[in-house]
């Protein structure tokens, strides 16, 4: 009887070995799959009432903090003193709705390490600091407020960055929401109201929404023309009010249906300054989809930009446009197969300001511990080179003329040389999107900005980039230079 007994024993012990293997799978090999499953509420539940780190602006204003809960000792309530002004950047950390924005991207740094686990006890013994880390942003409260107020209740976005570093100085998305509502009582009701709001306040128009960039895209088409050597600002083109698209009955018309110059020829410079669509439809077809696509991709189109969170991918559909010249003509004025985020268009302005070099955009300047000691500083990263310094110089020359005598005159700031480009793109039900991208001061740029006003803002059907977006850019630039 000993042989079957041994076999039975072996069978049970093999069974237990299998249990050990299975446990290894669940708890070691694939543990993260189950730990991080969105239906696993454990992690969020452990974070209730825990202290989280501060988020402060570059000029020292507190944007997010944990206040002691008056009802429960040792417990904290998250609050956002600047409310809607920084909502799209800072986000929220809510028990019911998870995390968003920097609260989500930097959650590991911001959360308290006091979990009372054995490894925490060890850390205490070893003298490690378990208090949460704090973030200092590159954004300044003063500029953010200027941009927020300049948009003045219109839906849209302003992105301002330092073209030489990629540091974001202001990033506004409107309409916004008050993140305090999502962490307090009645959070669920507020959440439902926000979700149901047709103006979509929870949408981040700066980085996660795509719009046709309109005539601001003419900077990219011009850059491609200069890079290929096909044209320079003095090159002349037939002056026409309307351009007949090849192989199509459609035309591309100048705004107002007027000629661009004397009715015979126009220089590229003049067409750029007055934003003549017919000329740029013709130019885009002459340059070809490939070179334009190459410059666009150098600027960040058609790929996921390196950023704090996943941003919408701006697009220039090179392959489709190579085969469809009519569509290429329409895309040459930033319509049809071109889509961009305001962040992407700020990078376009930044590249011109920075001699063709695109810096990777970033929001957090440094992280520091509870004693104020620096833990980590953001390292500057070059995203890529979109075009040569010569091309950048030619573009700067043309863009400055836009502000001094062209469509972007309202972006001017007294005593400062401002360069820019307006855009008026197909919007919603006849109300065009208004755009302006630009930078200043021309001789040594410290700010590049993209302004986007959705569906014309309060100007509605009569809106244009020059009338609606350019004045906002002027306020932001002057606010930054006179800080």
């Amino acid at each position, binding site marked *: 009887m000993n042989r079957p007994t041994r076999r039975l024993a072996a069978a049970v012990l093999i069974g237990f070995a299998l249990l050990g293997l299975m446990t290894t799978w669940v708890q070691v090999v694939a543990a993260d799959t189950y730990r991080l499953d969105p*239906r696993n509420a454990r992690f969020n539940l452990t974070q209730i009432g825990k202290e989280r780190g501060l988020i402060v602006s570059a000029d020292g204003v507190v944007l997010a903090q944990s206040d002691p809960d008056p009802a429960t000792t040792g417990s904290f309530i998250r609050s956002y003193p600047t409310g809607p002004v920084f909502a799209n950047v800072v986000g929220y950390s809510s028990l019911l709705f998870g995390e968003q924005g920097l609260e989500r991207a930097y959650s590991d740094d911001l959360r308290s390490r006091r979990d009372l686990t054995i*490894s925490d006890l060890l850390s205490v013994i070893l003298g490690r600091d378990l208090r949460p880390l704090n973030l200092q942003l590159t954004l300044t409260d003063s500029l953010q407020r200027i941009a927020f107020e300049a948009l003045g209740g219109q839906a849209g976005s302003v992105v301002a960055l330092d073209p030489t570093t990629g540091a974001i100085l202001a990033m506004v998305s409107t309409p916004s929401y008050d993140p305090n509502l999502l962490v307090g009582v009645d959070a669920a009701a507020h959440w439902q109201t926000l979700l149901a709001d047709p103006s979509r306040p929870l949408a981040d128009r700066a980085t996660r929404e795509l719009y046709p960039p309109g005539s601001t895209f003419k900077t990219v088409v011009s850059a491609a023309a200069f890079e290929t050597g096909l044209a320079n600002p003095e090159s002349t083109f037939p002056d026409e009010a309307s351009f007949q698209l090849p192989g199509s009955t459609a035309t591309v018309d100048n705004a107002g249906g007027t000629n661009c110059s004397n009715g015979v020829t126009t220089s590229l410079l003049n067409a750029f300054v007055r934003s003549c669509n017919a000329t740029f439809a013709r130019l885009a077809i002459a340059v070809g989809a490939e070179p334009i696509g190459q410059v666009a991709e150098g600027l960040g189109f058609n790929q996921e930009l390196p950023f704090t969170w996943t941003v919408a991918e701006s697009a220039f559909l090179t392959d489709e446009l190579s085969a469809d010249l009519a569509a290429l003509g329409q895309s040459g004025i930033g319509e049809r197969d071109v889509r961009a985020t305001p962040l992407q268009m700020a990078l376009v302005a930044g590249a011109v300001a920075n001699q063709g070099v695109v810096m990777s955009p970033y929001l957090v300047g440094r992280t520091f511990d509870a004693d104020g000691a620096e833990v980590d500083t953001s390292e500057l990263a070059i995203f890529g080179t979109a075009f040569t310094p010569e091309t950048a110089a030619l573009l700067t020359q043309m863009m400055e003329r836009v502000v001094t005598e062209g469509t972007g005159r309202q972006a001017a700031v007294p005593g400062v040389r401002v360069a820019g480009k307006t855009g008026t793109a197909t919007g919603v039900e006849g109300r065009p999107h208004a755009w302006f991208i630009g930078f200043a001061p021309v001789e040594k740029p410290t700010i590049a900005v993209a302004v986007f006003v959705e569906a014309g803002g309060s100007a509605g059907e009569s809106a244009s980039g020059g009338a609606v977006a350019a004045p906002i850019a002027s306020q932001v630039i002057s606010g930054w230079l006179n800080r």
Partner: protein
Amino acid sequence: MTRTAESGMLVAAAGVAAFGVTLVILAGGQTIDSRIGLTFAVMVAAFGTVHMAIRRWAPSASTVILPPAALLTAISLAEIHRLDPVRAGLQQWWLLIAASMTVALLFFLHRRGTATIRRYRYLYLLTGLILLLLPLLPSTGPLPVRGLEVNGSRLWLVVDLGITEIRFQPGEIVKLLMVLFLAGYLAERQSALAERPRQLGPFKFPEPRQLFPVVAVWAVSLVVLVVQRDLGASVLLFGAFIGMIYTATGRPTYLLIGAVLTASAGYGAYRLFDHVERRFLAWIQPFQNFEDAGYQVAQAWFGMGTGSLAGSGIGLGRPDLIPNAATDFIYAAVAEELGFAGSLAILAGFALLIGVGFGIALRCRDRFRKLTAAGLTWVLGLQAFLIIGGVLRLVPLTGITLPFMSYGGSSLVGNFLLLGLLARISHEEPA
């Protein structure tokens, strides 16, 4: 290991339980109170008296039986305390009751020896069958003993004592009675069952009348499954039988027959009963059925994954999110809070206990004692494997208790008696 070393390990296990309860209290932000000392005292009292009884009435017994069981009990007391302090208090009473009954068993066997047990084998069969059917008594009525249906399974017995009522799952005791009956029966019929005079094609079979008990136990298991809807007890009962008949005869044919009968009964139950079908879904696709049948298993896996290597720390995880964490899913609860390290400790504890049990069986010269020791160990191992395997999705969930760990008096009493029997056998057949 000396007897003194054994007592030291039992005290250490009591210390583990008391330390665990201390951590639970601290993690809950409560102040330290008498519960810590009480837990320690109950552990020492329960295992100490059994230990003393072994010293006195079975001095040659193996010293490695009690310590692993004490460790498993200690971990579970702390975890049950964390999940439900009220139940932890009740569990401590049951622990004392189980220990006293084991002491009584050892005293009884000290006078007569296990050989006398063999004589009453048919009495065990009868008692076992009656106990199995008792939960079918009407749940209302004048009788002081009533049946009770919980979660779709009718496996509870309520004994009304006037002042209070005691709930009991007879299945845990039936398990022991069946092993004792089968050991007696098989020790007698071993050779007849091993012979295979009949031939059908390439297969050889024993005389059909020798196969009668196989079919009979299968039928009883089916009754348990169909009438009481108790998948766990049914599988355990039949599994115990097949394992023992294989041990007695050494014929793998019985394993094959057992597998075929289990599979067909399982398929039938799957088609017939909703609650078996739900368990099947929970086994195969718990995450796709998270909102419904798969919730319990999925939560257990979330907990175990979150626990990872070191665990959340006892009292700091959320095993309360797992339904029935203190009973069927105690393994997942410990795995979440004590981590992979804790899970391995439990598996190692069971493996040690099972290894020792089979070791005792192998040493036995007497056929009855050998079959009893092997049968008891097999049942213990099978039960632990089925429920932990159910939690880990190696096998479908059967809803039985994890010996020494799940909250529940019947289970604790049954498994303590099992230890007592093993200890007595190892005393009678010393190494």
